[in-house]
């Protein structure tokens, strides 16, 4: 466990090294990035191997930072953080593998990339609201540069939209946290202290603070109707950035909702609970329908991400240990599956064919030209549809079982999303890879073969989704005890109807 804070330092150090190495040679920067990402992942796995699940955050480091304001550099972890850190390590590693072909300003690219990873790790480890916010901001800034410099279609617009949304979201979070800080009157920024003080807040304060903080985080989680940054951002981003965006950054938002907004302001949460659930359901169905008619391949995946994150939010809104456990599992699962889908579309297909229009792809016998990509995409699509054998199935099943306990009608409405997901995924599979082949000469298109980093990355992600699909307890054994901590316990017994 004590190795976890090192993930932050390793990532930041790696960022600097990549910058230095990039000045010498591109290959050096790549190797540095890969080693850094592997180290981060290795550290999380090492921590996981010695992890004893407990019903509380386990302190890792807790020293004063700005004593005058009661701000502490307080890092702590529980099973939820650990799950997301392992995901971050995996996403970071595979992201580097899928960016192996980046040729422009490689050092800078990986420096920004690793800085983003460091920020994300920091968020997942922070037990102090201020520290969490600082890491959160650190994670947002590199995104802008990654998209604006290395992105594709409409990249400046996408980057700008994403960053404006992110900053708007973080402004809301900051406002809510500052308000709570002021109202708590000297309790400082520690999450536990704030939660303790929040029990004395008035009803109105609780509602207001919850609305600010939750909305702020939910923007980043892609909650309907604040989701429009996600598809455009994904489309504009370079492959590795889309993978991180969908795989990890959207999880930051959901994690913030679960770690900060809900336990700190349970009264506010109880008030808004039905609204959140219905917005989540709307997101599941709405984004699914939008995905059904997209002509840009990446837009299909982008909207599917919004739809899947709807399940996460629904699981949180249902507010019981089962649904919330499912939500965290879904965060992991979606992180892996979305990463895989973006990798196929962005790296394996787009960078070879230079088009993402389904109409163009339909005319290419892609399943013959790049069969590996076709197989991976079919498997990832099946996983995305929630087919048994892949991680999406136990995750969505657990969310639905838990949601049914709270309110059967919510589960009823959300289950329709499974059907829509099948419809848009099958359409994407058939049109993109298995279009009309007989008209086109295979030799007319010469595509470079799939490289080893792509294969390695795809296999890692596929392995993860299948392993968790067969054996979800591997993660749930960490997650469940964390949800039994007093803070969550109060939330789940008091908040739910």
């Amino acid at each position: 466990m004590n190795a976890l804070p090192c993930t932050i330092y390793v990532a930041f150090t790696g960022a600097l090294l990549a910058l230095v190495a990039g000045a010498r040679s591109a290959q050096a920067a790549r190797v540095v990035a890969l080693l850094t990402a592997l180290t981060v992942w290795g550290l999380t796995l090492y921590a996981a191997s010695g992890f004893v699940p407990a019903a509380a955050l386990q302190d890792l480091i807790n020293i004063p930072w700005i004593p005058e304001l009661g701000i502490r550099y307080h890092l702590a972890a529980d099973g939820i953080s650990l799950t997301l850190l392992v995901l971050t390590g995996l996403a970071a590693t595979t992201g580097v593998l899928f960016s192996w072909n980046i040729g422009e300003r490689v050092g800078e690219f990986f420096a920004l990339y690793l800085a983003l990873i460091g920020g994300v790790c920091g968020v997942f480890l922070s037990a102090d609201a201020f520290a969490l916010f600082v890491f959160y901001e650190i994670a947002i800034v590199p995104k802008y540069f990654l998209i604006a410099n290395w992105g594709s279609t409409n990249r400046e617009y996408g980057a700008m939209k994403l960053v404006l949304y992110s900053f708007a979201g973080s402004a809301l979070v900051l406002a809510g946290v500052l308000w709570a800080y002021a109202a708590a009157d000297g309790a400082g920024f520690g999450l536990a202290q704030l939660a303790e003080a929040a029990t004395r807040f008035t009803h109105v304060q609780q509602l207001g603070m919850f609305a600010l903080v939750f909305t702020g985080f939910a923007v980043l989680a892609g909650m309907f109707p604040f989701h429009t940054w996600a598809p455009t951002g994904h489309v504009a981003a370079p492959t590795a950035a889309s993978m991180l965006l969908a795989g990890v950054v959207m999880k930051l938002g959901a994690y913030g909702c679960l770690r900060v907004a809900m336990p700190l302001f349970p009264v506010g949460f109880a008030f808004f609970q039905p609204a959140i659930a219905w917005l989540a359901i709307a997101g599941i169905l709405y984004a699914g329908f939008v995905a059904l008619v997209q002509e840009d391949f990446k837009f299909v995946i982008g909207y599917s991400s919004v739809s899947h994150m709807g399940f996460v939010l629904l699981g949180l809104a249902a507010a019981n240990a089962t649904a919330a456990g499912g939500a965290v599992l879904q965060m992991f699962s979606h992180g892996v599956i979305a990463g895989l889908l973006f990798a196929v579309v962005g790296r394996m297909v787009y960078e070879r064919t230079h088009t993402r229009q389904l109409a163009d792809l339909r005319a290419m016998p892609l399943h013959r030209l790049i069969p590996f990509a076709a197989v991976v995409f079919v498997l990832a699509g099946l996983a995305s549809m929630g087919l048994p054998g892949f991680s999406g199935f136990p995750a969505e099943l657990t969310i639905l079982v838990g949601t049914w306990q709270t309110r059967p009608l919510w589960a009823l409405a959300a289950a329709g999303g499974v059907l829509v997901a099948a419809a848009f995924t099958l359409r994407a599979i058939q049109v993109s890879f298995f279009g009309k082949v007989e008209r086109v000469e295979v030799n007319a298109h010469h595509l470079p073969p799939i490289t080893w980093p792509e294969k390695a990355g795809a296999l890692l992600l596929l392995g993860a989704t299948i392993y968790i699909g067969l054996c979800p307890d591997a993660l749930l054994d960490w997650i469940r005890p964390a949800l039994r901590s007093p803070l969550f316990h109060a939330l789940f017994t008091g908040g739910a109807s």
Partner: protein
Amino acid sequence: MTLAVQHLWLIPALPLAAAAVGALAPRSGRTLAAGAAIGAMAGSFILACLALAGALADPAAHQVFNFAWFDLGFGALRLGFLLDPLTAFMCVMVAFVSLLIFIFSTGYMKEDANYKQFFCFLSLFAAAMLGLVVANSLLLLFVCWELVGLASYLLIGFWFHKPSAAAAAKKAFITTRIGDLGFLLGLLWLQDNQGTLLFYDGGAGFLEAAALANLSHLLPCGLAVSTAIGLLIFCGAVGKSGQFPLHVWLPDAMEGPTPVSALIHAATMVAAGVFLIARVYPLMTADQALANVPVHALTVVAFIGAFTALLGALIAVAQNDIKRILAFSTVSQLGYMMLALGVGSWVAAIFHLLTHAFFKALLFLGAGSVIHAAHHEQDIRALGGLSKKMKVTYLTFALGTMALVGVPLLFSGFWSKEAILHAAHGWRVSHLPFYAAVLGVVLTAFYNTRLMAETFFGSPRSENAAHARENGPAMTLPLVILAACAVLLSLVNLPSYPWLAAKLLGEQEVRGHPIFEGAGLMGLSVVLVALGVGLGWALYGRSLRANSAAKDPLAVRAPGVIAALANRLGFDELYAATVGRLNAALATLADVLDRFVWGGAVDFLAALGQFTGLVTRETDERTLNGGFDTTSDKLRGAGQAYSQAQTGEAHGYLRTLALGFVILLLLVVLGGAR
């Protein structure tokens, strides 16, 4: 030697391993993939026989082996395997039919470039189907249910370069998933209500008395909980078993290679819905004791089944594609099975399921043999005269047809259909389903006579049919074996010695009825079959079709009716115009909303921000700077340079930031003041 329940998982595991071998084998590893698939299937078949022996030793027992999958947070989600006569008979049937169809496929798919994949997918299907059968948990059954759906998707779309095949695969998957949605909801409800999804668990399973007693309370709408859950689960069966109103996918599924149609869309997967209802039969009947409910679950099952039986038979009359005729016949026969379930005789349903699996697999393989020999000609109007060219196919196909039609005494189909008619006749709720079933018998005899006459008699009506030659032993041997089964299977459940029924019901002793009991009904059905065959022969047999373009004699007499039936009564168009339209409209609406409303709002805000920036900048230049300038002019100092630095966007941003900070501060103060 018997197979213990804890080793039951081996039965699906063997084909799964074969699928893995098929997936990993190189493209040239054709023999390896096919050999692994056939070997694994033979192994599964032997194990299934051993399991059957174990189940028959104590037919009343439900032997279970349960284990935890993962923890839901309030208790483990448990899965398990179940061994009882129902499972064992299904296992033997699935493994045996699969084995024969695998062997047939080595001949039928010989020229296909993706031969290896074909066997990989087939093995995957067999694994999932066997897993479905041995499951002791509704969840495990659902998991396998989804996987057979996936395998079916992959195999219908196997020739995906044909747009019709790709479309059919998608249609099948989505349509069955509509039903699966109901299944999933029933499962969630049951899990919430019972806390377990195990069928049998030493008294704690949801099919056992203690749990069923909890399910009889009434909902606000007047239905019992068990009725509601039962009907939701039945939705899944409606989708998978091609029952009205979700039957539309099954005929389209014939786009797949013919062995696939035989195995998945005739013998096994489509019968899974019938098996499912038979499996959860205690749940389905839990509401029977309640008198004050508006409807019983089984009543719905019976009416849907009877209607589908009639509908399928009617539409089959006007089809011209040999496989489509058989497909609608499957829809119809599945309807008979559902009818049997609905009227209370699940044993009759399973008997018909088993006999149907053999004779329908035989008919499809026979059709495959014809299609293979006739260079993929499937239109019966263009066939003809094959009785002389393909003797084995002809004879076995004829046996299969007689079983399907229900030619008396010798054929298995006769006895199983007889059992269903008998049960429907004795149903107290309504006699309508019985009449529908009786009418269906006539129609079945009619369209099958037509099929035989047009395909095999007369002279060839196309080049392809003229060049047809009998296929090799890989294809004819399975036909012969299946034909033998189609006849001999009647022996296991004769009314005078109903061995199968007794075992399924868990009775050690077999108590038969005297042969003349129910002879009146039997006589009626003999007359009905004779009537159907006679009509068919009068129209199609006496004066054989002269050429492929000649008008159908029935279409001459009733053109409107036949056109409507040929068009499958317009269900596809109806769905396209309603559900399809609605779906497309919703998708477009959501897309427009996203692009213009939400997206527009964001763009508007961004534009507003830019506009504010512009305004502040202008104000800066004109008023503030102007002020500074005048001051600097007057002071003639460093003011000039100072103001220069402050122009431009940075200033505007800073100002907005400051404004935000002020608002924030106000909020903080506001909060602190309380």
